[in-house]
């Protein structure tokens, strides 16, 4: 395992582009394709937006991002906050077969994270929510 990137910033929208750009260039150095990097950034955005909007309620807090290589040729993005406990794995999948009238407006974010990553994990450690997005580094990428 090798640490590739460490960032800690206040969990605010103004830091969104900076964090995403840093992760994007880190993924690029791992040889991932432009398409795959965009997919990864979409998944990361969903995690960040949930933290920015819901983790800290009325108080201020940080988001910490660590990018690293993992077992079996993987690229791992670990995103940590110290906000209210939230297990994204427990969120039910939306019904994507409904027509326009019945289709729910929300609930797509976590579904996209699951589908756009090769593995999505959550753990609670002390006062921390730790979400891990695992991306396979395959030769054709």
């Amino acid at each position: 395992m090798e640490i590739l990137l460490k960032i800690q910033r206040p969990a605010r929208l103004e830091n969104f582009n900076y964090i995403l750009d840093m992760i994007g260039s880190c993924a690029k150095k791992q040889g991932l394709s432009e398409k795959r990097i965009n997919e990864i950034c979409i998944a990361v955005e969903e995690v960040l937006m949930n933290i920015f909007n819901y983790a800290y309620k009325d108080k201020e807090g940080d988001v910490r991002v660590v990018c690293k290589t993992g077992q079996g040729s993987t690229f791992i993005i670990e995103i940590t906050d110290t906000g209210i406990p939230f297990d994204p794995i427990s969120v039910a999948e939306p019904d994507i077969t409904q027509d326009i009238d019945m289709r729910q407006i929300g609930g797509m974010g976590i579904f996209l994270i699951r589908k756009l990553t090769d593995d999505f994990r959550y753990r609670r450690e002390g006062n921390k929510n730790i979400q891990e997005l695992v991306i396979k580094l395959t030769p054709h990428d």
Partner: protein
Amino acid sequence: MEITTRQKKDITIVTVKGRIDGVTAPEFENYLSELISQGRRNFIINCDGLEYISSAGLRSILIIAKKLKTEQGNIYFSGLKDAVEEVFKISGFYSLFKIYDSDASALNSI
């Protein structure tokens, strides 16, 4: 994100380039809402230059689509590629909307 429009008879072609993300999605939604309030009812969203769409963008599209449906309007998409095409497939938007390769094929079919 960059948005431009052109009118082809009663169809408004909206070309959106760059990214529809959590930051830019409200702007995209307001832009289309404004066109609807001006009386436009039929839209082709040209995604040739769209590189990125997150759930915030899907949410905006769904809000606009629901609004158009109550006004007997329609929304079509053209030129989806790469990550945007992937997100449309995953989220079921391919079966929710009519999607064409290009504006020309959309205009021929509508």
